[in-house]
């Protein structure tokens, strides 16, 4: 949802004269929406700006984003960061992978999803604190 939100926001800014660069980890969602410029880091969701506790990786990632911002020749420019999360790519098999969940775990997640949905619904109806 989050990658979709920033992609829609980037498109709206571009349409109205503001250049954008999206930094993200979900390549398919951003490209399916379609944005002007995208720096893709092939990292677990939550690390669009670099590796945790690694200032060098974070500086590298933002610098690469700025280079894409200034040099993209056309819309839908995606650059993939050369940084690797880990030499072993098996982490990619885990996220929301139904084949790796037991029937009990699927039931548990369904209950949890319904519970969180109720909480979100209550939050939406509350007056907003954060402006």
């Amino acid at each position: 949802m989050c990658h979709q939100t920033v992609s829609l926001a980037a498109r709206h800014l571009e349409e109205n004269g503001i250049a954008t660069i999206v930094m993200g980890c979900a390549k398919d969602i951003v490209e399916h929406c379609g944005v002007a410029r995208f720096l893709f880091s092939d990292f677990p969701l939550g690390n669009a700006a670099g590796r945790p506790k690694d200032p060098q990786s974070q500086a590298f990632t933002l610098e690469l984003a700025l280079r894409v911002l200034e040099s993209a020749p056309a819309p839908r420019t995606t650059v993939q960061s050369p940084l690797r999360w880990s030499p072993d790519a098996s982490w990619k098999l885990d996220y929301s992978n139904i084949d790796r969940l037991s029937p009990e775990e699927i039931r548990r997640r369904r209950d949890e999803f319904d519970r969180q949905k109720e909480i979100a619904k209550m939050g939406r109806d509350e007056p907003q604190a954060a402006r």
Partner: protein
Amino acid sequence: MSERDGYPGFAPEHDAPIPYMQRIRDYYWALGYGAPYRWAHYAEVPFQPLQKPLSRCRIALITTAAPYQPGKGDQGPGAPYNAAAKFYTVYSGDAAADHDLRISHVAIDRAHTTAEDCNTWFPLPQLRRCAAAGRIGEVAPRFHGAPTNRSHRTTIERDCPELLARCRADAVDAAVLAAN
């Protein structure tokens, strides 16, 4: 190595960007939620070239992270998904100050990352360093928080125009948008 394993030096088949849309579709189908989510999709993509060198541009940062809210449950590091920490309208913050922003309200990869270092999702300090070094002209006076609404209508008709209005009010030339 057999032919089936491919030519020596090929990466494993699964070492490719995760197909999130398919994963999420299959996941919610298996959980019992029927109609698949329709992701935003466009054939045409707008493109605004930069009008001047980056070293003279004012740049805004846009994030989907949420300000830490005491009393709203575990917000990390290592927190499970926490819908109570969500926010529903655009907010802004002083880009010159430091902020405690969290991502427990979005679907990050909780098996493989812990959300312990906010510089991995909110590169404001790094953007300020770029300004200090002259790489960009300046950081816009405010950064902006974009709510991750499930409703396309809410995002497109309410939140996107609000983000644009705030960027315009700050006369920004370009924006960096960091997703989670």
